[in-house]
């Protein structure tokens, strides 16, 4: 497979390789297709099964029809999902939590990055260093102490403890070291002369941030939005611990209901499809932005 290295001189390489092994490009292509099946089929199976009654899902298992929309198809499973759990509520909660986290995250983190990148003041380097140092701490290490901690914090209405609220699912995840780092890098690439010109014209720093730098930071905003949205939408451990009432519980945790009741695999697949397919569609539509965002997360090494 190393024959597939994207080298400019690959005409030469391939000519030599193909003379000795003419089957190689075909084998490589076959491998690509086989891998496609490995990664694609389980997801296809999930979506297709969501339209089938349970008996048929099991009946189709040993054959190709497991991956094909054949037999008696219906929306019964989808209807069942909405009847069995407050699914609409779960979905709305997930949307609220992820959209607000992304929105606040863009503002808070870009402001911090702006201060670190474009203003000069003492202590800057130290702050940036501390922020970058926190990158290696996985959330899971501090999840339990954080759970204890948010339960001691005074809430906005004067009571103690943040458990079972929207805020506890949003606010701890607004400030993000990696988002700050991404914005910081991007802002550094915008010419500083723009600031000087604006200052001469009497613009304040806040004005420069709002009207000059942020409008130029589209790609960085997109990257941060994607990298914040995915974990917010997919988060599981934290909402599992901090939510008790259905009114604020997100969809990822809601799926647990189906394990406790009589298992209907068709309904589980329907539930899984609803919370997955929109994200997959978004991904395919904005593929380049997604891939670039993920690629940019590799630069921190």
């Amino acid at each position, binding site marked *: 497979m190393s024959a597939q290295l994207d080298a400019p001189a690959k005409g030469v390489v391939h000519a030599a390789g193909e003379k000795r092994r003419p089957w190689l490009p075909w084998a490589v292509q076959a491998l690509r297709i086989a*891998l496609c099946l490995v990664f694609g089929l389980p997801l296809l199976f999930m979506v297709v099964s969501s339209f089938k009654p349970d008996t048929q899902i099991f009946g189709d298992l040993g054959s190709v029809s497991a991956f094909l929309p054949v037999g008696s198809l219906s929306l019964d499973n989808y209807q069942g999902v909405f009847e069995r759990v407050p699914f609409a509520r779960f979905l709305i909660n997930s949307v609220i939590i992820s959209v607000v986290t992304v929105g606040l995250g863009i503002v808070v983190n870009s402001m911090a990055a702006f201060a670190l990148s474009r203003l000069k003041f003492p202590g800057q380097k130290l702050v940036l260093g501390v922020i970058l140092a*926190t990158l290696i701490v996985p959330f899971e290490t501090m999840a339990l102490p954080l759970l204890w901690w948010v339960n001691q914090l005074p809430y906005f209405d004067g009571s103690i403890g943040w458990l079972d609220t929207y805020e506890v699912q949003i606010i701890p995840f607004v400030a993000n070291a990696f988002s700050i780092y991404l914005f910081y890098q991007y802002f550094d690439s915008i010419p500083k002369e723009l600031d000087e010109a604006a200052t001469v014209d009497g613009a304040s720093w806040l004005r420069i941030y709002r009207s000059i730098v942020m409008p130029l930071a589209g790609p960085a905003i997109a990257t941060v939005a994607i990298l914040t949205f*995915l974990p917010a939408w997919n988060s599981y451990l934290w909402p599992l611990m901090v939510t008790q009432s259905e009114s604020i519980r997100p969809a990822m945790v809601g799926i647990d209901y189906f394990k406790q009741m009589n298992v209907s695999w068709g309904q589980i697949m329907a539930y899984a499809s609803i919370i997955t397919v929109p994200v997959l569609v978004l991904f395919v539509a904005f593929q380049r932005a997604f891939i670039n965002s993920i690629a940019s997360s590799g630069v921190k090494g």
Partner: protein
Amino acid sequence: MATTVVTDAPASDPVRRARRTTVRRTAGVGWAMLAPAAVLMIVFLIIPILLTFGLAFTNARLISPVPAKFIGIDNFVRLFGSATFWKSLLNTVIFAIVIVPVQSGLALVLALLVNAKVRGTNFFRTVYFLPVVTSMVVVSMLWLFMYQQNGLINALLGRLGIVGPDWLGDPRTALFALIVMSAWQAMGFHMVIWLSGLQTIPGELYEAASLDGASTWQQFAYVTWPGLLQTRTFILITITIAAFSLFTQVNVMTQGGPLDSTSTVVFQAVRTGFQQQQTGYASSISLVFFVIVLAVSLVQRYLTRDKELKR
């Protein structure tokens, strides 16, 4: 302290004073813009990290009318005497040792496969990446069904005349099943990281190598592999940390069973700190976890730095 900046040109006093105030004002604006992020990070990141260290030596409970008491190293004594903890640590280490080379190696193969300018690579890359944007909860549910004794995988194996095991119900195969599924989910992510690494290698190097008559394999060994040093460090560290953080799959699919064969460090921490509300004890588990992650990052960073010096 902001004023020491102005010591350069022999400026007259008013000018110097004006500049001094600008510098001070800039600092004020800077800290103000930094403040929201700084406050949030202190409250929800720095303090919890410090709390991990503090609470580990107390008998704090999640909900308790009595304030937490310092109990020295009691939590650690109990932890290191617990068979479940050692089993969980062992499972986590096995998981990491297997998944790190498997996942990073296969992801590199994927990256090489889609890095060619052949028609359709964009399509392949998209499909390989689909599981990454699928949440781990959904992936776990899906594979929970696929791994059933009468599920998809065994049905397909049955077509080949193989009687598949009860993947998640058998202590000998359960951890292995989790490894396969986790690698399947995350591989596309690391494929993209490898890809961006591959693209930083200048094309002239390949040109020169092929002029010198290097075979494809030699090109890989002497141009591609050394050129990916940075990427390699990053990928190793992220996969290792992700492996040690293993929780969702376990909680959705096996609950640590059968016979603790899939219990992990984080799963243990959640079970004790959340379900049993023993925050102090859970913090001691978190602290052990934290030390491991720190050690792994430092060791991997040290190893790759060493290589850089030699070259």
